[in-house]
């Protein structure tokens, strides 16, 4: 089993990272005064005097951040970002933003720039592309198949337990397989997408989570399976919703209001479960709204380059963050508040780029933390057990000691799925899920699972460099930071490297809201990949160029 897992992860990441390498000039700008060509690599480019700009024009008549040249599905646009001397398109000063065509003359300060085509978009290239797509299809199908085989092997071990056959795990497996193939066919043939690595990774991890929950109880596995289906739909919805970053920018404020309302409902109608008041009961289903607020938080924090250049201050975002974290503290969900804080740091740094701001935030957070520790004694309690769990094996270190003892019992290869003892401990399939994986699936597989999320984080960072908008860059890094940090809190909390906090392991932990919101976050990383919308983009831009001729 670990071998199959290595195979899946290798294929996923190999194909993820291999396509990162192909880069080409999108267009070029011809500088009339110096007779030089300036290549444009990104979908969103800042133009100005500042050394951080993508196109640096060193002239006293140019503002630090003068303009933004960006690309959308229907062509290129130039936008003036509150410059002093203005931007002129074909001799006319533009108000806000204006569409630019090949051959148009842009006047920025005292420089004149002519928009030219990038690398030729020949038929040859198209043929190559087609061939690559075919290979890609085969490898995607192959990857989905081996993921299915992996889940099949795991379910079989549950099915044939103690010399008795049980069909139920195989039915669950059937649904997981069904979800993956339906998703693949819809998006391959209806929406003509070609990349499915992130989704396969998500399905691989969620499948492990469902099978693991099944070894605890079949009803919880059912909830988890249901959440997976909703999560995949939610994922698809978000990828469509943020397809146009300008539209998404307009929605930000409504999303923020919705988030605050959700938190408000939670505060007033929430139920207290296990020390924190973050559950809402809707008939048979209970939800954790704070999980969904994570997705909204990332959404609100992200911004296009135009948005960034025109509104430099972070006030709105800081206010929103304070409301979110404040509400979480009142609810007593200390772990989730920490995750929000990390997401806040990542977003704030990516938006402002200033180390000083981050430093100040950290200091003020440190002061805030000491206050909280004074008021919330149970949090202090957790810190008291930290790194001393064996001395508290029967009170506050109860869960951690069990995780350590049972993960050692599992060894590198595991005791076998369903044969563990950790599942009888409170909150095992959610907070202590890493321990369960270690015990039943083995240390090698558990480490593979967490490393796969770590590598997905690296991938998110790399593709954020080349994404179609800073909106995607910021949101994908923030989403990756949330997923990674949440996993760290969960895993390291249960093995006594961090103090234990009751947060979930993304994808794997038992918890419907958590699974759905993790899929939501994954959508942001997916969106940052410039290939996600590539088929459509190719068609539109081709038509557009034809029209130009």
């Amino acid at each position: 089993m670990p071998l199959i897992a290595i195979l899946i992860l290798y294929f996923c990441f190999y194909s993820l990272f291999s396509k990162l390498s192909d880069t080409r000039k999108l267009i070029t700008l011809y500088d009339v005064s110096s007779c030089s060509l300036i290549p444009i690599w990104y979908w969103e480019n800042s133009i100005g005097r500042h050394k951080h700009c993508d196109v640096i024009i060193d002239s006293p008549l140019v503002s630090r951040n003068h303009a933004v040249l960006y690309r959308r599905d229907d062509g290129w646009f130039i936008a003036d970002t509150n410059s002093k001397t203005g931007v002129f398109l074909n001799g006319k000063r533009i108000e806000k933003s204006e569409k630019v065509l090949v051959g148009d003359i842009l006047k920025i300060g005292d420089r004149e720039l002519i928009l030219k085509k990038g690398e030729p978009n020949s038929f040859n290239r198209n043929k190559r592309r087609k061939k690559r797509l075919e290979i890609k299809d085969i490898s995607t199908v192959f990857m989905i198949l081996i993921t299915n085989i992996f889940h099949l092997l795991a379910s079989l071990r549950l099915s044939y337990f103690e010399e008795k056959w049980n069909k139920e795990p195989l039915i669950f497996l059937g649904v997981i397989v069904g979800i993956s193939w339906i998703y693949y066919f819809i998006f391959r043939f209806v929406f003509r997408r070609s990349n499915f690595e992130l989704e396969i990774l998500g399905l691989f991890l969620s499948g492990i989570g469902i099978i693991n929950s099944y070894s605890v109880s079949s009803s919880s596995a059912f909830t988890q399976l249901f959440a997976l289906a909703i999560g995949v739909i939610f994922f698809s919805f978000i990828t469509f919703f943020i397809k146009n970053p300008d539209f998404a920018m307009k929605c930000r404020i409504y999303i923020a209001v919705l988030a605050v309302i959700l938190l408000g409902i939670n505060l007033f109608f929430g139920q207290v479960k296990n020390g924190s008041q973050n559950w809402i009961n809707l008939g048979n289903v209970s939800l954790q709204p704070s999980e969904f607020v994570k997705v909204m938080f990332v959404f609100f924090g992200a911004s296009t380059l135009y948005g960034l250049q025109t509104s430099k201050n972070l006030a709105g975002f800081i206010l929103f963050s304070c409301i979110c974290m404040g509400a979480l503290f009142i609810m007593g969900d200390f772990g989730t508040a920490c995750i929000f804080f990390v997401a806040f740091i990542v977003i704030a740094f990516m938006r402002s780029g200033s180390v000083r701001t981050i430093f100040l935030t950290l200091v003020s957070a440190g002061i805030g933390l000491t206050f909280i520790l004074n008021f919330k004694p149970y949090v202090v309690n957790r810190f008291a057990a930290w790194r001393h769990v064996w001395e508290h094996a029967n009170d506050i270190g109860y869960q951690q000691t069990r995780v350590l003892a049972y993960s050692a019992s599992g060894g590198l290869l595991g005791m076998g799925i369903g044969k563990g003892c950790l599942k009888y401990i409170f909150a095992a399939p959610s907070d202590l899920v890493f321990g369960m994986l270690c015990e039943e699936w083995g240390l090698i597989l558990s480490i593979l699972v967490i490393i796969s999320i770590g590598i997905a984080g690296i991938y998110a960072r790399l593709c954020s460099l080349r994404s179609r908008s800073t909106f995607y860059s910021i949101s994908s890094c923030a989403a990756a930071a949330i997923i990674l940090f949440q996993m760290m809190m969960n895993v390291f909390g249960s093995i006594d490297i961090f103090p234990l906090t009751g947060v979930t392991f993304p994808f794997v932990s038992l918890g419907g809201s958590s699974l759905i919101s993790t899929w939501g976050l994954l959508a942001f990383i997916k969106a940052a990949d410039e290939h996600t919308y590539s088929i459509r983009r190719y068609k539109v831009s081709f038509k557009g160029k034809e029209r130009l001729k």
Partner: protein
Amino acid sequence: MRSIVLYFIIFLFFIGTGFFVYEFLMKNKDWAFSSVNRHLSQGIISQGKILDRSGLILAETENRKRKYSDNEKIRKALLHVVGDGCAFIPTSIQSLYKSELFGYNYVTGFGMPSLLGFSQDLTLTLDSKICSKASESFKDKKGTALAYNYLNGEIICMVSLPTYDVMNRPILKNDDKYEGVYLNRAISSSYTPGSVFKIFTALAALDLIKDADKRSFSCNKIKLVDGEKIVCMKNHGKINLKEALCKSCDIAFSDIALELGKEKMTEKMNQFGFNSKLPFDKLELSASSYNVSNSSSGGLGWSGIGQYTDKLNPIHMLKIMGAIANGGICVEPYIVKSMKMNSYFSETKLKSPGLTKFLNTESADKVKEMMRYTMKNSYGDSKFSGIPMCAKTGTAEVGNNKFPHGWMVGFSYDKSFPIAFVVIVENGDFGIKSAGPIAAEMVKNIYNRFKNDKII
């Protein structure tokens, strides 16, 4: 480029993961065998057998239950060696060798099916019948009896009292009957030595005082040292070292301690293994102590005859007996004779962990002769049915109006029957009266057991 902040989190994550893997590799045994692990207590995983030297089963797993010897007397006698399966006796084989018995290793964890498992069967050097007889001969007294082969290190007998039957565990109230029941007294206790300490004093004298065995000491029953009284049993008059050991003259040995002084005595005792935790199997023994740094002269005198604050560990004494018998060099005692993994592997034979030179050969040989003289003239060879032995008894005053602890230590003179023994009976009255018969019976049993069987 600002997204570099994400790398920071990823970096932290990899450090944390690496740290966990490192901890896992270092501490996996501690974690797996911690008392919180229900895999162990539920008996899901089968453990290897424990056998005595003649192949009798002392413990085995059958139908997911740990079973012990069929014989109640053997179960009781070997409780402290075999263990009770609940980790109450941390010095027992089932605790010390749990990873071997359970077949634990960090690669497969406990996940291997028992047929293919790595669990090992252990064969001990002990003879269960001799142990059960020795244990019985204590009757209701507490204490410990040890015997080992001083040429190859195999422990033949090791019992500790009080004890109970693992298969019918009594309710262990905090009463006197079961006081310290989980202690293997041979390993985890140190007793006031009384007169057996005179062996050490004699060894120190022979090492440091020229012609110590030729000079004479004068005993007038009572001696005053800086106003403190040291009292002897009798007025021995002029007496040499050999006679002093034989008659256990207190005045002579306190004189030696006083003559050598605190520093030399402490130095010598440290050399003989006092004040340090000596190794035994995978353990450290409870330390024997000799500390006169704050004593008055009277205290120093008493320390030379095994009173004052002197403490002696039984296995330490056994090692010294082996060393005297063996020209100053102790063959370290050991208890696990061999290990055998499942039927696909051959048996791994174990050996004594090595030799330790505690004593000068010359002094050891002289003390050996003195102890032989003591045995012949003070106790009589008839006690051991004529087996030529060297021995010394001790009666350690423990205060509180309780009976003194009785000691008898010794070894066989003849190397064709190489046995050294230590017997302690707590609050058992005079050594020769309490420990003597137990020691004699044990040695005779061993002699009969190995009469037709090669002992080495």
